[in-house]
């Protein structure tokens, strides 16, 4: 589909208060579709029964229970909703807190923007969940959050329930400011080398370890009943790093080169934490065994390379090669526009690397779900999982595939037919608002002009009467209202 048309549609549908919000029928049957379960093969002419937002049954011969809403998907394909493991949509303000080398105090969850039109646009590309990351300006960046693309819901209802929060790390050129020259007169920020990046990360974890010890000591002494203890200060920068060491927060590390990836694995071992995903990881194919042994996932681009020095060794076989060596691999967008065609990005690994269709689908469904720790609830079409689904008119791995409907928790959040139907209504609403604004601007202009003309005439008027202060007598100026002076009413 022409992306321009889709963009226009998305802008228009964006804020339709009723229509864009999905209804909430508790029981839905999607029937007569080709179902790509990802975990247990494809089902031709199959049905999916959804109850209370969960997948209740999947099979070839399902009957619609009474009162169920039926979605006829004859000739269409249903796949698990796409999960984008690297996204920067739905953020209010900058995605980088770029000043300090360690900006772990900044938290994406504080600034989720449920009104970002890219949520809707990505829904139109079949995406149902996304890992919203801080930018890559710092060796240790801000805290991250996994969201469901529940368009129309407030920020508080976007986070994926139960998903562990994350934190962004970044290695290489971005954190050492290789591609952002420091303006003259400004002191360049440390670090300026890959060595420095490692040092900053190690130093931060040394501080976090000490901080954790302070709190452990305090809590121990307090529990023995010791009085008059002054607690340590809370440090919003170190708290998330302690959570990383406690296994309560995932590390998503932006990286390119093999050497720096190995470096971070060593640093993580030193401080007793695991890197959950290496992001971009363009040289991952060189050290896939080491990444697999470290228990980390690899979330990469399909075929972006050579856009900076550290991206020169990238190859489009990366995802397939990492998969072959046992790395849980995913393909991500890092871009609101590309997120709308992640199905095609995944398909590229069939050409480059020869992945099977099912393994290609895994790159954007089950694998990112595993990487984000949400695979118990998302990533495949299995009974008991959330009904987060994308319905395409063709096989999603085909370039002809266009999303027809996207469901999250069993609710339709994007419906192509509804979108098309609404376009003219929204266009005319927009036009009438524009006209109204234009009219009132003209009226205001006329009013101002009139006032100007009046003020030009006014000086001819006589000045107001002479005024005297009240204590000077009965007068109080030109109003003549005061009827008595002090004591006069007696």
């Amino acid at each position, binding site marked *: 589909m022409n992306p321009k048309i889709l963009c226009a549609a998305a802008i228009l549908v*964006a*804020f339709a208060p009723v229509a864009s919000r999905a209804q909430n029928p508790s029981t839905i049957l999607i029937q007569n579709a080709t179902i790509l379960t990802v975990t247990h093969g494809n089902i031709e002419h199959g049905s999916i029964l959804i109850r209370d937002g969960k997948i209740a049954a999947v099979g070839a011969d399902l009957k619609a229970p009474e009162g169920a809403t039926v979605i006829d998907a004859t000739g269409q394909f249903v796949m698990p909703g796409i999960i984008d493991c690297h996204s920067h949509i739905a953020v*209010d*303000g*900058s995605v*980088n*807190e*770029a*000043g*300090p080398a360690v*900006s772990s*105090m*900044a*938290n*994406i969850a*504080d*600034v989720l923007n449920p*009104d970002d039109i890219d949520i809707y646009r990505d829904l139109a590309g079949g995406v149902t969940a996304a890992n919203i990351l*801080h930018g890559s300006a710092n060796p240790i960046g*801000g805290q991250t959050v996994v969201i469901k693309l529940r368009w129309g819901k*407030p*920020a*508080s209802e976007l986070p994926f329930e139960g998903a562990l929060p994350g934190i962004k790390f970044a290695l290489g050129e971005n954190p050492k400011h290789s591609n952002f020259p*420091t303006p003259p007169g400004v002191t360049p*920020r440390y670090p300026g080398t890959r060595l420095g990046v490692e040092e900053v990360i190690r130093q931060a974890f040394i501080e976090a370890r000490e901080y954790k010890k302070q709190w452990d000591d305090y809590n121990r002494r307090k529990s023995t009943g010791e009085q*008059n203890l*002054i*607690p340590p*200060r*809370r440090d*919003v*920068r170190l708290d998330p790093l302690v959570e990383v060491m406690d296994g309560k927060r995932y590390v998503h590390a932006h990286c390119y080169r093999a050497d720096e990836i190995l470096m971070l694995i060593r640093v993580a071992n030193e401080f007793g934490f695991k890197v959950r995903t290496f992001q971009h990881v363009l040289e991952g194919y060189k050290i896939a065994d080491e990444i697999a042994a470290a228990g980390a996932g690899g979330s990469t681009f399909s075929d972006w390379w050579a856009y900076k020095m550290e991206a020169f060794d990238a190859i489009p076989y990366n995802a397939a090669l990492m998969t072959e060596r046992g790395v849980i691999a995913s393909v991500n967008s890092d871009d609101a526009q590309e997120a709308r065609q992640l199905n095609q990005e995944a398909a590229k690994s069939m050409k480059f690397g020869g992945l099977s269709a099912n393994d290609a689908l895994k790159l954007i469904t089950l694998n990112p779900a595993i990487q984000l720790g949400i695979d118990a609830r998302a990533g495949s079409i299995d009974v008991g999982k959330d009904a987060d689904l994308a319905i395409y008119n063709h096989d999603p791995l085909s370039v002809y595939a266009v999303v027809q409907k996207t469901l999250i928790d069993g609710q339709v959040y994007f419906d192509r037919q509804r979108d098309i139907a609404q376009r003219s209504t*929204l266009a005319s609403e*927009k036009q009438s*608002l*524009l006209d*109204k*604004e234009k009219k009132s601007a003209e009226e205001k202009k006329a009013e101002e002009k009139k006032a100007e003309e009046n*003020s030009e005439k006014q*000086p001819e008027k*006589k*000045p*107001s*009467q*002479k*005024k005297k*202060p*009240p*204590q000077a007598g009965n007068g*109080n*100026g*030109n109003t003549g*209202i*005061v009827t008595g*002076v*002090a*004591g*006069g*009413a*007696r």
Partner: protein
Amino acid sequence: MKLRSRCRLVPLVLLAVCAVTLIGWVCTARGEGGEPRYFAVKNARIVPVSGPVIENGTVVIAKGLIQAVGANVAIPPEAWVIDGKGLTVYPGLIDAGTNLGLAQDDDASKKRSAGAAASRPEDRPATTPWRVAADELKTDDKRIESWRNAGFTTALTVPDGGIFPGQAAVIDLAGERPGDYVVRPRASVPLSFKPVGGFFGFPDSLMGTIAYVRQVLDDTAWYAQAEPIYQANPTKTDRLPYDRTEFILSRALQNNELVLLPANSSIQIVRGVRLANEWKIRAVLYGGQQGYEVAAALAASKIPVLVNLKWPERAKDSDPEAEQTLRELRFRDRAPGTPTALAKAGVKFAFYSDGLAAPKDIFKSVKRATDAGLAPDAALRAMTLDAADILGLGDRLGSIAPGKIANLVVTDGDIFNEKTKVKHVFVDGRWFVVHEETPPEKPGEKKPADDDGAAAARSNHVEGVGR
């Protein structure tokens, strides 16, 4: 003037000796010097806001406070009596967010908002909570007078510049000296979430700014907890480091000062409610213009809102070809409906004028709100009693009731009618008569014969009593 020149003549050596006598004399002089302390407005229509309208009644003012109000109220013999026939008496209006009396856009303010030198929270970027608006009042701010002439007697005046710009004051819009203006010197701690760092300083993002505020509030809570422990056990605990921000803020928050959180769009409002709950502060949201989208959530939070009367509009010199999103268009169209939505949902709100240059624009903005469905009664409440309640001064401001501060505005009609004129204003029982404005003459035009009157009309269309 006489007084002042005499003071100058007193030789310095005698000054100390004379001081006590002199002060006593000044007080006596003020007491006896003709400034009336008792007033009565009779035969007027009275809108007390806190109770039903009195069609023909009297308000008695004694020594700065309202002594009595009602249909049959005895007028004390010493009172100046104003015949209020055809006039309406309202409580003085409250503007719940201004910078009246404060220097604007000065170098100091710019310096405060710059955080480029900071690289982490400990550097306390753009943080000056010790700056108290009440201590910086410039009573020669011409706007004070023009606001008062329009019926405003009280304002929250808020310092700006930076993330923690200082502490705001509630002021009455008249007095002999700056201190007389101040009703509550440390009324609230305003916050801004505007990043200050540029690309190389901290914080340079919204999320960084919020994280910074979180750290400062944590540090403040820590200091409030640690200080008494240290003071009680100085020989057994490490000496506490002194941090001006923690020291000042811990006192402000223990003093239960309001914290003003910026929240204009619906996202900001929802976020503001969440942060207020997380931070356990006595929060008031300011901005509030997209409140129509989240009125129910606001009502549930019980957090009051100061609604900015500078309604959003298309930028004056904006590119006419620029794409306007439907969302922006809807916001500009619907924002004036916010007060209606808030009133319907039961959210307590007040109005503030920040961004509007003149009082006439305030009334135009209020009219847009009433045109969008807000009951005039509710609009009046938002500018009187509800504003006073939100600011924690409902016991002394905002309505015409015995014991309240004598802030009144007397008009010749409905205060929201654009043809209505303000005739008298009382601030702390000080009487001001408002005269019709006469536009300045054109240069070169012949001066009117009556020099005295013309000069008065030009320079000041209000006269105080006994000045």
